[in-house]
């Protein structure tokens, strides 16, 4: 019989530029999560397993076996430990594995840490590193990158559905506004919509990165780590915080080469992962009160909001224009600031998204709280959509 799993601790130091080592950065997040759960480090900590999510520590920081290193420096020995690599969806994948470890009965308490230190390398080395997840023959050697695919995808969506450059900018401004209330966000300033879309110097202020995408349509490069404590619901009363339940998880894959997709304007893996998560949770899109969607590029927030069932296909940008995705709107999206403003340290992102939903369901999202939120969805997007994990969290009825 499958056991129920909850989240009882979260740790989310501010994303940005790390002044400490990769492992220390991960440890700061981990101890914040343990403290939040009321777990005392040292003897009797009760953590059975640690998962470390990182896409590139082996390449960027030239370090391997990091989960084993962390379990030792945190003095959680002899807990089980593994590292998880699933591109930019590593964080949600690690949470899924934590869920499975507990649901199976093998573990009672699991610590999941996601971390990435990307700013140790130059911009073009970082761009190259991220592009290594593209197809090694049909894509990577051409100089194709994730922004290149996002640019080509954006152009198709603009042609088909009438999305404008200003719609992308509206999403960016909304997310920057939300990030002003998130102390963990990397970027704490709000660009003016008129300046980035209409100013005569907009090509200098907001230059093209991958046409038609401009600088403000793309997330920044950030260092960061985030951590959560998962537990079996039957032991949840050991901890300081009330558990937030993991009600559903879905995951789906798609073609490696983007050109091979059946419908070039679809994000099929997003749709399938979300449908699976709704089914497992026995909930529907309209039951969601808040969502974190993977806006590495602003076009993705719009199309994901359609693929997860919040809006009909081709109408996500209209909902943005009507303000329905703002806090106070029909379905607030990326209340944390999203990847756009909070930052996108690859391996940390999936964990960070789930933390924002936990804070919203606890009622702890000060300044950006969605009143009465009881259920939320997080979508963590790997590759250019070839591996997507969707997670649904719910608040327990009192």
């Amino acid at each position: 019989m499958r056991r129920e799993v909850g989240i009882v601790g979260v740790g989310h130091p501010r994303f940005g530029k790390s002044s400490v080592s990769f492992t220390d950065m991960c440890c700061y997040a981990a101890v914040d999560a343990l403290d939040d759960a009321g777990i005392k480090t040292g003897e009797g900590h009760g953590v059975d397993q640690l998962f470390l999510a990182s896409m590139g520590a082996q390449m960027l920081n030239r370090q391997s076996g990091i989960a084993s290193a962390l379990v030792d420096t945190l003095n959680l020995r002899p807990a089980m430990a593994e590292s998880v690599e699933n591109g930019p969806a590593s964080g949600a994948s690690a949470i899924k594995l934590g869920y499975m470890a507990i649901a199976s009965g093998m573990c009672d308490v699991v610590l999941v840490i996601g971390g990435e230190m990307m700013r140790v390398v130059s911009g073009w080395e970082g761009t190259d590193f991220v592009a290594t997840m593209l197809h090694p023959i049909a894509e990577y050697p051409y100089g194709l990158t994730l922004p290149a695919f996002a640019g080509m995808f954006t152009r198709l969506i603009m042609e088909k559905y009438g999305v404008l450059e200003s719609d992308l900018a509206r999403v960016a401004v909304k997310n920057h506004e939300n990030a002003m209330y998130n102390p963990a966000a990397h970027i704490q300033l709000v660009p003016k919509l008129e300046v980035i879309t209409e100013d005569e110097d907009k090509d200098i202020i907001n230059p093209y990165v991958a046409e038609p995408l401009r600088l403000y349509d793309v997330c920044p490069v950030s260092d960061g780590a985030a951590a959560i404590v998962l537990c079996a619901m039957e032991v949840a009363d050991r901890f300081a915080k009330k558990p937030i339940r993991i009600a559903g998880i879905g995951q789906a894959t798609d073609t490696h080469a983007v050109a091979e997709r059946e419908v070039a304007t679809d994000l099929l893996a997003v749709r399938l992962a979300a449908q699976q998560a709704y089914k497992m949770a026995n909930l529907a899109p309209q039951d969601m009160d808040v969502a974190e969607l993977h806006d590495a590029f602003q076009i993705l927030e719009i199309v994901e909001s359609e693929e997860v069932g919040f809006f009909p296909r081709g109408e996500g940008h209209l909902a943005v224009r009507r303000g329905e995705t703002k806090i106070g709107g029909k379905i607030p999206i990326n209340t944390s600031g999203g990847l756009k403003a909070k930052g996108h340290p690859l391996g940390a992102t999936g964990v960070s998204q789930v933390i924002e939903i936990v804070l919203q369901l606890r009622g702890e999202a000060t300044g950006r709280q969605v009143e009465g939120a009881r259920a939320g969805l997080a979508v963590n997007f790997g590759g250019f959509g070839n591996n997507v994990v969707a997670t649904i969290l719910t608040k327990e009825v009192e």
Partner: protein
Amino acid sequence: MNEQLFAYRCLQCGELHHPQHFVCRKCGARQFEKVLLEGEGTLVTWTRVYNLPEGYMKPFLCFGIVNFPNGLNVSGQLEVDQPEIGTKLQTTVGVVKEGIGQDYFGFIFKAK
């Protein structure tokens, strides 16, 4: 050097693939024959990228997805001044990345 690029046709069901797959995406068979990819294609979408990764000494590069008359879509570089969706382009194969001791060949689509 006259480099060529191929599609891979499933010997059992005829489904075309590019890049090569280990198992046919349609019928599950595992044997393929090579089919030359050449001639004309139609531009599906494109971008001009200014932040290139390490190893490309250019201020920007254009990329596109091109649809062949046989139905296959592939990614490639574009050497077209003003690309437009729906334009017919000529398929060529050339060096897409210069490597130390090894150049990488790929599709470079040009205006007709």
